[in-house]
């Protein structure tokens, strides 16, 4: 009899779930939020979901958009890549959202991309990534490699006099591409191949003894050595701990990371990391009026003073602001019109200066390099003079050096080959 009850309970739960799901909205503009709320990526992505919700909240307080209220439609792709495609389709067909803010990992974006293009959706992608992509339906508000990796290397080379390079990364596409670009860049700058060490480790790698020992040996050849780290998420803590334990200090061999931000630091004992570097477009510690306001709003919204802000949050912020501006300007949420209106939109960066959306759907942003402090914040030690325009296609990869992206007439192409003067790939077929 116990089973009967259980069974009845399950049926009931399924039934109610279906009812609650069909709660329809009136005259609102729907904003889809496609960030994992469970699974491995939930750690990072939940924050971005909250950021979008905060921005929607703010916008509604300020009177909404085009006289309508904004309504968030939150789905959970659960860190499961095929689910990103499925949920994108759900958002675009079932929920009829006008725009999607979402994705963190490259693979999730790649999974959602065909659906976005098929159903002509619009997505804002707020995370630094490897580049080599430009879709009509996506705006990339995070950094491309030339907005993070290359300035960082410039800084190490020119300001710290680094001559030997360790490119250490997790074995996936972002580090692979970034390191390919950096290798080409370093060689173009006259660095000998013997002075570059490349190393890849699996996700969540935790036993760094041998690799750190190799780095130590590599760095003891008398030339100033630095590590350019594209090590992802979880693997960072054991890596830095091992560096500290093997007595490698940030003065001996500084590590510059592209995936370590305030959020990541808040979950770890920062002692072994102090003095190491990170390159981002945003640091919470930057002292501007906009940033202060943003942090305040965030703390009020999330009801927790200890929550930090980070670069992808700023990217979400910029993306959202630009979208509202573009919608107001276009007077509609129609994807094609908003897409055209987006180009050239300007939003004030939280770190000063102005971000501009370029023809290639990437932003022009300043690049900052910060040193990790023991309170989990960054001290800015260097920044670019002006803004750096994001490159969809790297100039340092043989496959893409002739490609550009320009979504304005007359080119209107994500991968236009300047040599052959033609739009390649899928576009050509249409």
């Amino acid at each position, binding site marked *: 009899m116990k089973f009967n009850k259980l069974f009845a309970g399950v049926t009931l739960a399924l039934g109610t779930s279906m009812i609650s799901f069909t709660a329809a909205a009136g005259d609102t503009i729907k904003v889809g939020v496609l960030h994992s709320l469970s699974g491995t990526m939930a*750690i990072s992505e939940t924050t971005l979901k909250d950021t979008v919700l905060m921005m929607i909240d703010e916008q509604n307080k300020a009177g909404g958009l085009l006289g309508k209220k904004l309504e968030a439609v939150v789905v959970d792709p659960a860190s499961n890549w095929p689910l990103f495609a499925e949920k994108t389709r759900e958002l675009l067909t079932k929920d009829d959202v006008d725009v999607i803010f979402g994705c963190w990992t490259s693979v999730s974006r790649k999974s959602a991309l065909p659906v976005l293009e098929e159903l002509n959706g619009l997505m804002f992608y707020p995370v630094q990534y490897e580049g080599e992509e430009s879709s009509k339906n996506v705006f990339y508000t995070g950094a491309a490699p030339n907005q993070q990796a290359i300035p960082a290397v410039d800084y190490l080379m020119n300001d710290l006099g680094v001559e030997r390079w360790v490119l250490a990364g997790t074995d996936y596409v972002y580090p692979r591409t970034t390191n390919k670009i950096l290798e080409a860049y370093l060689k173009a700058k006259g660095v000998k191949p013997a002075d570059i060490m490349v190393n890849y480790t699996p996700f969540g790698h935790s036993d760094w003894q041998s*690799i750190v020992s190799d780095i130590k040996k590599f760095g003891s050849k*008398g030339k100033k050595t630095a590590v350019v780290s594209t090590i992802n998420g979880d693997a960072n803590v054991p890596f830095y701990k091992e560096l500290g334990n093997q007595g490698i200090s940030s003065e001996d061999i500084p590590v510059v990371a592209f995936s370590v931000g305030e959020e990541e630091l808040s979950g770890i*004992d920062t002692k072994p990391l102090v003095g190491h570097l990170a390159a981002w477009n945003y640091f919470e510690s930057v002292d501007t009026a906009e940033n202060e306001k943003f942090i305040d709003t965030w703390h009020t919204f999330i009801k927790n003073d200890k929550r930090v802000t980070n670069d992808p949050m700023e990217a979400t912020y910029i993306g959202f602001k630009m979208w509202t501006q573009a919608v107001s300007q276009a007077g509609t949420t129609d994807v094609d019109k908003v897409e055209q209106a987006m180009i050239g939109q300007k939003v004030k960066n939280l770190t000063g200066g102005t971000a501009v959306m370029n023809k290639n759907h990437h932003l022009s942003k300043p690049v900052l390099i910060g040193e990790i402090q023991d309170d989990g914040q960054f001290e800015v030690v260097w920044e670019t003079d002006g803004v750096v325009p994001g490159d969809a296609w790297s100039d340092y990869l043989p496959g893409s050096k002739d490609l550009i992206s320009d979504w304005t007439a007359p080119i209107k192409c994500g991968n236009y080959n300047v040599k052959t003067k033609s739009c390649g790939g899928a576009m050509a077929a249409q």
Partner: protein
Amino acid sequence: MKQILCISLWLMGCLMPAVSYSETLTDALESPAATTRTVPELVQELTEKSLTQAVPVLEALEQQGGEEMLPLFRTMLNGDLYYVKDTSQVVGKTDTAGEESYADILTKAAVTGLGSRDVKKIRVNNTLRSYLRNAIARIQLSSANPHSREQAVLSLLSELDNDTVGQIREARANESVEEVQQAMDLALAMYALDQGSSDIEKLDAVEGLAGSLQPEARNMLRKYAEMEPDHADYSARVSAAAAKALERIQEKVEFYGFIDQLFFGLSLGSVLLLAAIGLAITFGVMGVINMAHGEMIMLGAYTTYVIQQLMPNHIDLSIWIAIPAAFVVSGLVGVAIERGVIRHLHGRPLETLLATFGISLFLQQLVRTVISPQNVPVSTPDWMAGTLQINPVWSLTLNRLYILAFALLVFFALLIILKKTNLGLNVRAVSQNRAMARAMGVRSDRVDAMTFGLGSGIAGIAGVALSQLTNVGPNLGQSYIIDSFMVVVFGGVGNLWGTLVAAFSLGIANKFLEPVTGAVLASILVLVFIILFIQKRPKGLFPQKGRAAE
């Protein structure tokens, strides 16, 4: 250029305070950076200058204050230098037993009534840190402590210039401690090789460097050994001698590299051993497949975190409290799982596997909900940080060393429990013949619960150790579960010694493969090897024999 000259002159001033103090002072007076500011004024300046402007101030301080500046530099290097927001008084923070106290950095007078909100940190960056470190080394060449002197010389090896060498030469004459003498001789030999005027002098220097394992000495030798014949300093004899010396050193380095790798392997092995040993009991002795074993480890690690949160001022002690606490927490959860679920699935190992997998999902989500989906920070106590430097090319990281020792300790403690105590006797009796043990009056259900609790508790202890090496997060357990099973199966189920041998051999195999194949391929190869091995010997390295094992 002039700046550099000034720095080197100040440097001389610091090194020979008695001889040429007045001389350098006059020189310094001429340089633009050093006006006649007093030390207190300069210290005050530190609170105002930005990071990039701080170096000249420090230079001035080093030059004027000499040895007296050591506490200031040290405090600054450690990031403990603050200034009072209201008065701009520069103070050093000391942290004794969690009590923060501040004292004026120059007068050492205690400044009371300050909270962390009243002071602002004087920030340092890498440039400043490396400047400070070298400055401390320069000042310490004349330290009273021979160890400091030796360290000072060694840290100057990478930037030997005329003046530094002059000072070292001077100090060498008065040096009586052998270790310091050797370090100084090394520095002088390096300088002689690089700057020496004749081949004979250089050959002598090569001789002096031949036995050294210092990387700087090796680099110097390599520079000459690999020098192109068209180089101005080239000499065939020196080059050949350097090459020969380098070869000898390289042999030693390779030897220590091998030892190093062995240690890495042992260390990885100790982690595997810790992770697997609890499983060796629940799986090996009781025959229960506990897929939630990893979560027992995770609970242990979280216990460490909670204890550290409860006693933030006694991090050094926290580990000692965390070990028994983790044992109790994981052990109790283990007992609860045994009583609640596993007991009902007795003799159905595959069902047990599924049910415990469900429990593992449940526990992970529980931690996510109750504590946080994020990783949590667990601090390393100071006594566990750092390295045991045996020679310049071979050092052992202390935390790994402790964990290795700890793993062995746990292993032998467990062995004794199983072999010598009443519980152990009962456990073995029940595992060999349940019905018979019951007939003899052993309360088998209680023994089951105790055994499972013991295995889980040990997993908890492993969690404490792992919290010192890796991330503490909800997924901690998952990353060890497959490895743990591999170790137990490879070693032979029901055999603790087998688990020990398996853990260490897999650890060592992994570490020796890693340089050749890379980390990923190494773990794949080890996995494939075990899969094939189990086909060959289904009962592992040390199988239980006889009809009882059927």
